[in-house]
């Protein structure tokens, strides 16, 4: 901590011993940070290294860090062991639907809370915030029962259990996190913009569509990325609702894979790596949005 503050001061090059002590400290501090970063990366590197080993190498004594020759065939072997192509399509489809649903429904609610005047606005918003702190498991059973009551035209059970519908339809019915995030952003938009449009005869829908939404693009991008990530990484809902192997998501498929290939670490690591690749690429492309999303809700919370 002391070092952190000291590092801020950027001393000019000097021969004095105090300065030298400082630069030693600084070097130590940077080394520690880099070492910590490597420690954070270690599981990922270990995953990559293991995914390219043979089974014998994995259990070799003395243990090896890197494979002697990279076993690239572990990847097609893993890919063909279970219908991973379907898993990826399912996850991508669900993540896209969830993202669209949240963008539409949360932005509409956020606009109402930020720009419209109506009775019960404050208590309704408070109720929405309360649902933010309720553990979602509390509603797991009634939601399951609700989806079990809803008729479904093509499912074998006749209801929504065993279909992918419970995993995305709810996203079109708003959400506390997204509404809160967008409302914070909408509140920062000068009301004069909406007022001016109003004088020109625009109704609230036009103001929402042509004034607020275009200005809120950064916040919408943040919400889109978060929703995509949550949907992609969700585990409990797929394992509760999905029944056929073909309909599984990447996470649920990986869990099945784990059960069927116990101890076959190279294949399991290849599967884990392939499953996280889309999120890692998304994160690297949109790091700014991740950081902003977390920071925004963090500060104003």
């Amino acid at each position, binding site marked *: 901590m002391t070092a952190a503050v000291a590092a801020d001061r950027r001393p000019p090059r000097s021969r004095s011993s105090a300065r030298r002590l400082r630069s030693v400290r600084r070097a130590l501090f940077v080394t520690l940070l880099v070492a910590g970063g490597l420690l954070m990366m270690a599981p990922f590197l270990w995953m990559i290294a293991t995914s390219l080993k043979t089974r014998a190498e994995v259990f070799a004594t003395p243990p090896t860090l890197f494979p002697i020759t990279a076993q690239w065939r572990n990847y097609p072997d893993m890919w063909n062991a279970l219908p991973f192509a379907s898993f990826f399509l399912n996850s991508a489809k669900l993540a896209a639907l969830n993202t669209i649903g949240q963008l539409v429904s949360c932005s509409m609610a956020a606009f109402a809370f930020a720009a419209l005047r109506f009775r019960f606005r404050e208590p309704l918003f408070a109720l929405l915030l309360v649902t933010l702190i309720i553990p979602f498991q*509390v509603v*797991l059973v009634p939601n399951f029962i609700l989806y079990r009551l809803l008729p479904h035209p093509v499912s074998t059970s006749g209801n929504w259990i065993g279909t992918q519908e419970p995993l995305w339809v709810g996203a079109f019915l708003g959400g506390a996190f997204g509404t809160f995030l967008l409302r914070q952003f909408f509140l920062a938009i000068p009301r004069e913009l909406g007022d001016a449009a109003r004088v020109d005869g625009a109704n609230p829908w036009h103001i929402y569509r042509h004034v607020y939404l275009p200005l809120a693009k950064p916040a919408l991008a943040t919400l889109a990325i978060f929703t995509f990530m949550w949907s992609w990484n969700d585990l409990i809902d797929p394992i509760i609702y999905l029944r056929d192997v073909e309909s599984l998501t990447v996470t649920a498929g990986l869990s099945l894979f784990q059960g069927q290939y116990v101890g076959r670490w190279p294949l399991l690591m290849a599967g884990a790596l392939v499953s996280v690749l889309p999120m890692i690429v998304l994160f690297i492309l949109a790091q700014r949005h991740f950081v902003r999303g977390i920071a925004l809700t963090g500060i104003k919370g």
Partner: protein
Amino acid sequence: MTAVRRSARWRAGGPLAGEGRWAAFFLAPTLLGLAVLSAGPILATLAISLTRWDLLTAPKVVGLDNYLALLSDDRFQKALRNTFFYTAVSVPVGLTIALGLALALNARIRGIAFIRTAYFLPVVTSTIAIALVWQWIYSADSGLLNQVLGVFGIPAQKWLSNPTLAMPSIIAMSIWQGLGVNVIIFLAGLQAIPADLLDAASVDGAGARARFRHVTLPLLTPTIFFTGVLSLIGSFQVFDQIFVLAKPKPTEATITVVYFIYENGFKFFKMGYASAASWILFLIVAAFTAVYFWSQSRWVHYQ
């Protein structure tokens, strides 16, 4: 005050009548969601918890039987104890490490963005993939951890099946995975601290430690409070880690309340019993959150 000014502006801008109807239109999806998916079902859970219901036959009202049964259910007691242990360790340890890291990462050093990325990567990857790697790291034969410890002559441990080590091992992984979120929030909080306050303290002769103790830390308490709420609520909901690391099913040393709910509701189809456990979890989280919010007047400094 602002509300009054706003309403006057709207009135100047256009007819106020009909705005309620527009609000109903914009809020329709959210209201439906609240009614059938979030707020409404909380009450439904309470009602279901008073019944015995296997989904195949009609629910039978049994009053408080489920709650009484939970009180004497050894597995539920263990689940509660493990969840408390998980929370009591992972929240303070996780927050302390994150705060230290945020202070370090706040420094202006070339290449810091790259190091930051390393810390945030575990946040965006799914717990199942992460837990798979950790299962392999913790593996009793040839796992990375035992190999590294072997270099120092420490005997191999069964990290995930030894009852004393299993929960701490799972907690270590969770802290590693969750660090990034808290670090980001702390970094945002640190960057919001006015530089002139720190400079003024320097001019007054405050050393780095004194500046941290008397300027940075007090101004950071709202952020610490917020990350605390997030971590507290999140830790009571721990499930994914347990589901993956404690396969085929958690022992008494690793079961948590949410796994208990999952097991009873969706494996044994004891809907009433699972609902009663959910409601108890809800009450516990609500009580902890309430006490935590009540405590904020004692240690959180708002500017």
